[in-house]
């Protein structure tokens, strides 16, 4: 993976519509299309790209017929390079293998997300964002290639068809490959309204195409950031202050210096790194250091203290995120429930530990890393080194799991600061302990509810979300009017018909810990708390949890269909053995409707065995069904892992978890069977990377209630409570 040139084209540009597509000749021959894709935040928040045409994606078809799409999104294992290539190949009518995808180089001017103000991949938004623009671009290019051929043959374009990268005149049997038509097509005016294929015409979209990025991943050839080995590279590992905001006072490095292979000890204000001939020597050296820290103002932070602050904040009135009807009056009924829920801090712990290779020279800086925010990477390196941005070259690599962690540049900043002290390139690898303990975490949320039930209907719903704001720190322009849209996502769009509905947000930043997006973002917490509470209400109303939900989904026919399908596939209503239970949860987040039934068994000691998970998904038109299923499966395991095992806690300002022995991951022998049923849909595609994660905890918690009668109002699952039969 090397850096790529910004796409170039000649000046003869044809504009179809000011805000849609530009077409021209590519430098060196061929057809070049520029178009705009509303990126992550744009798709998510519905804000348009603005009135000016600013293309951020580019298609080049060369004289050999090879198609290249250059775009801001990066591949992180979510399979988007395959799915996006499928969309383009479909409308362009070329074989999938002829499409190559290239990640764009860092360039905010070209690839900026209009809402967030910079270039970013994330939020289960890639397919949603690309779907229409890419289809229209593909269809336009195809129309122009047809027109070019028709001119050549002197026939009407309408009598020509396309297949497998060629234009065909059926009556005469003539055939011209795209490559031979690109130069002529580049001179044409793009159609104002290209005709898109109908669903019935799709021959690629909706089929299980092979992932393009996998062959290298099964042979060990794929290069992740951690695999970068520029010539002359040295190896380092680091320890940052165990307490956020702490400082190094003194380092006794006598032993380390004498160790074979150890080259250099870099002491910075807030961290110490050992540079060596290999990572093992660096680690040995680091372990032998005797470092005295000044823990600073967060020296005594504990999780208990943070929880107390959140609880206190939950008694404050928040900023209104959504309000319908008159909740205050409607709450004035007999059957009224007041409950609180809470979810803990979580680490991302991607399998590839944080790492970054940097070479700082007087006149430039080179970075080898895998991450989701290339321009931020470039900017932070420029800021630290004082170099102009264009002197910072970023080689982006495959990402060994992001889950949100690689939307941050904290590790890049640390690595660049270390590299400034090192002669030549240096690869900084975090130990797993450092990766888990000096990270940013999913927020600790505390939720306060007041709800009213009239008969078997929810008539009032007041939900106060309390937690830190990631957006306010990470993308200040997106933090509008004091509401963190991410923190309330899944809460404001509750699918049920509740006449009096009120959601508030209270921002409460914890001391001594920073928070950050985590796979499933806001909904991982909101779907858990709302769907658990809806389950509580069903039982209070004496109704079956599925029919209680059914009766209140008038506004959500797609979700209702999912619920019905999952109930029948899971065998809902069957009599189950003692201490076996099934739980249901539904959600409409990330543009995808998902209903889940989870079956668990709980032994007398409170040990939980997740047996089976059944999902019914309507994610709109499915581009690659196999990828959808894989993402639901993986998202579900990710969410179950957190619900069953994960919690980051602090004592004396320090994160207490460190590696997989105490920050536990679900293993294959704990993993349930997962069945995913896709619903045929003609709606626009929804996001699929995160819904499974959001669905895991609520369906599990509801199943645990069914099995034991214990309602868990906080995560992770409390086995002692399940054993004792007490709600917690």
């Amino acid at each position, binding site marked *: 993976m090397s850096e790529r040139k910004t796409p170039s084209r000649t000046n003869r540009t044809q504009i179809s519509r000011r805000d849609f597509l530009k077409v021209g000749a590519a430098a060196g021959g061929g057809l070049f299309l520029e178009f705009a894709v509303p990126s992550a935040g744009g798709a998510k928040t519905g804000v348009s790209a603005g009135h000016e045409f600013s293309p951020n994606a580019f298609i080049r078809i060369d004289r050999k017929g090879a198609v290249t799409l250059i775009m801001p999104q990066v591949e992180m294992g979510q399979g988007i390079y395959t799915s996006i290539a499928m969309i383009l190949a479909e409308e362009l009518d070329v074989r999938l293998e002829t499409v190559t995808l290239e990640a764009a180089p860092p360039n905010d001017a070209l690839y900026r997300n209009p809402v967030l103000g910079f270039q970013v991949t994330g939020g289960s938004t890639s397919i949603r964002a690309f779907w229409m623009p890419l289809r229209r671009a593909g269809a336009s290019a195809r129309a122009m290639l047809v027109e070019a051929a028709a001119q050549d043959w002197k026939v009407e374009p309408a009598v020509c068809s396309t297949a497998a990268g060629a234009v065909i005149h059926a009556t005469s049997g003539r055939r011209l490959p795209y490559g031979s038509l690109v130069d002529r097509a580049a001179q044409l005016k793009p159609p104002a309204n290209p005709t898109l294929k109908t669903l019935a015409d799709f021959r690629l979209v909706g089929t299980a195409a092979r992932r393009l990025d996998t062959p290298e991943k099964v042979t060990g050839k794929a290069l992740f950031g951690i695999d970068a080995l520029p010539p002359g590279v040295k190896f380092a590992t680091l320890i940052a202050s165990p307490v956020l905001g702490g400082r190094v006072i003194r380092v006794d490095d006598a032993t380390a210096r004498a160790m074979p292979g150890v080259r250099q000890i870099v002491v910075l204000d807030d961290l110490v790194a050992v540079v060596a001939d290999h990572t093992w020597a660096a680690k040995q050296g680091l372990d032998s250091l005797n470092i005295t820290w000044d823990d600073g103002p967060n020296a005594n932070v504990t999780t208990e203290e943070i929880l107390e602050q959140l609880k206190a904040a939950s008694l404050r009135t928040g900023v209104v995120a959504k309000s319908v009807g008159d909740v205050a009056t409607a709450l004035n009924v007999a059957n009224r429930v007041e409950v609180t829920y809470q979810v803990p801090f979580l680490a991302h712990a991607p*399998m590839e530990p944080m790492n970054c290779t940097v070479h700082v020279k007087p006149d430039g800086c080179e970075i080898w890393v895998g991450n989701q925010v290339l321009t931020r990477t470039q900017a932070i390196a420029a800021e630290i080194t004082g170099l102009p941005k264009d002197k910072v070259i970023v080689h982006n690599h495959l990402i060994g799991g992001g889950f949100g962690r690689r939307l941050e540049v904290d590790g890049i900043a640390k690595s660049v600061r270390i590299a400034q002290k090192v002669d030549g390139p240096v690869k900084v690898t975090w130990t797993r302990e450092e990766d888990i303990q000096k990270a940013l975490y999913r927020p600790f949320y505390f939720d306060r509810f007041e709800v009213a039930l009239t008969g078997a209907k929810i008539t009032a719903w007041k939900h106060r979300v309390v937690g830190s704001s990631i957006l306010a720190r990470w993308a200040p322009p997106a933090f509008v009017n004091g509401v963190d849209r991410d923190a309330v996502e899944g809460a404001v769009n509750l699918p049920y018909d509740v006449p009096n509905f009120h959601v508030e947000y209270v921002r409460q930043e914890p001391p001594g810990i920073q928070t950050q997006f985590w796979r499933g973002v806001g909904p991982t917490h909101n779907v858990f708390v709302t769907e658990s509470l809806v389950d509580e209400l069903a039982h209070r109303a004496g109704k079956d949890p599925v029919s209680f939900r059914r009766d209140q989904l008038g506004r959500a026919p797609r979700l209702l269909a999912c619920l019905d399908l999952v109930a029948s596939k899971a065998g809902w209503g069957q009599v189950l053995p003692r201490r076996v239970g099934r739980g249901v949860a539904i959600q409409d987040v990330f543009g995808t409707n998902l209903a889940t039934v989870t079956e668990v068994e709980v032994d007398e000691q409170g040990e939980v065995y997740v047996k089976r998970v059944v999902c019914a998904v309507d994610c709109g038109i499915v581009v690659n069904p196999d990828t959808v299923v894989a993402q639901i499966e993986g998202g579900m395991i990710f969410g179950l892992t957190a619900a069953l095992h994960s919690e980051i806690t602090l004592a004396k300002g320090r994160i207490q978890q460190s590696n997989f022995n105490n920050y536990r991951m679900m293993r294959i022998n704990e993993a349930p069977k997962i069945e995913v049923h896709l619903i045929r849909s003609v709606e626009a595609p929804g996001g699929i990377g995160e819904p499974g994660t959001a669905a895991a905890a609520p369906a599990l918690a509801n199943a645990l209630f069914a099995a034991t009668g214990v309602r868990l109002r906080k995560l992770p699952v409390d086995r002692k409570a399940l054993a004792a039969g007490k709600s917690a």
Partner: protein
Amino acid sequence: MIDLQINGEIKHVDAPDRMPLLWVLRDLLGLTGTKFGCGIAQCGACTVHLNGNAVRSCVLPIGSIGTRAITTIEGVRATPSGASVQQAWLAAEVVQCGYCQSGQIMSASALLTTTPHPTDAEIDAAMAGNICRCGTYVRIRAAIKSAAQLAAMRGTDGDRTDNV
């Protein structure tokens, strides 16, 4: 100097006896297919074969290896079950981010070498030491079973599948 037999070649390595094999492979020999995930034998990302058995290279001191043959993901295709496992992995679309998959494939191919037709329980026992954060477990189970069938076919029909 220690001599190690890696993927059929002898490598001379200038490193301390107690240095774990993982770092010799990655940092000294540039064989980066073997991954670092935890360093404490809890995740399996670093799995290699030692005389055909799956071991965690992050805790394996090179001084203890002696003349035993080391196979890494770069060389597993040449082992009896390696190619079948790789092929089954692609057919089942197991891979997501891919970072854990070198280790998964090494564990799976070691399993199939000793247990050509593993039961679910045998798969669970052999694979439980390999964490996949992307959650590909469901497919790993399926892929191991189809790899077992592939290997059986290979046994009768010879090597028919080359496109890994």
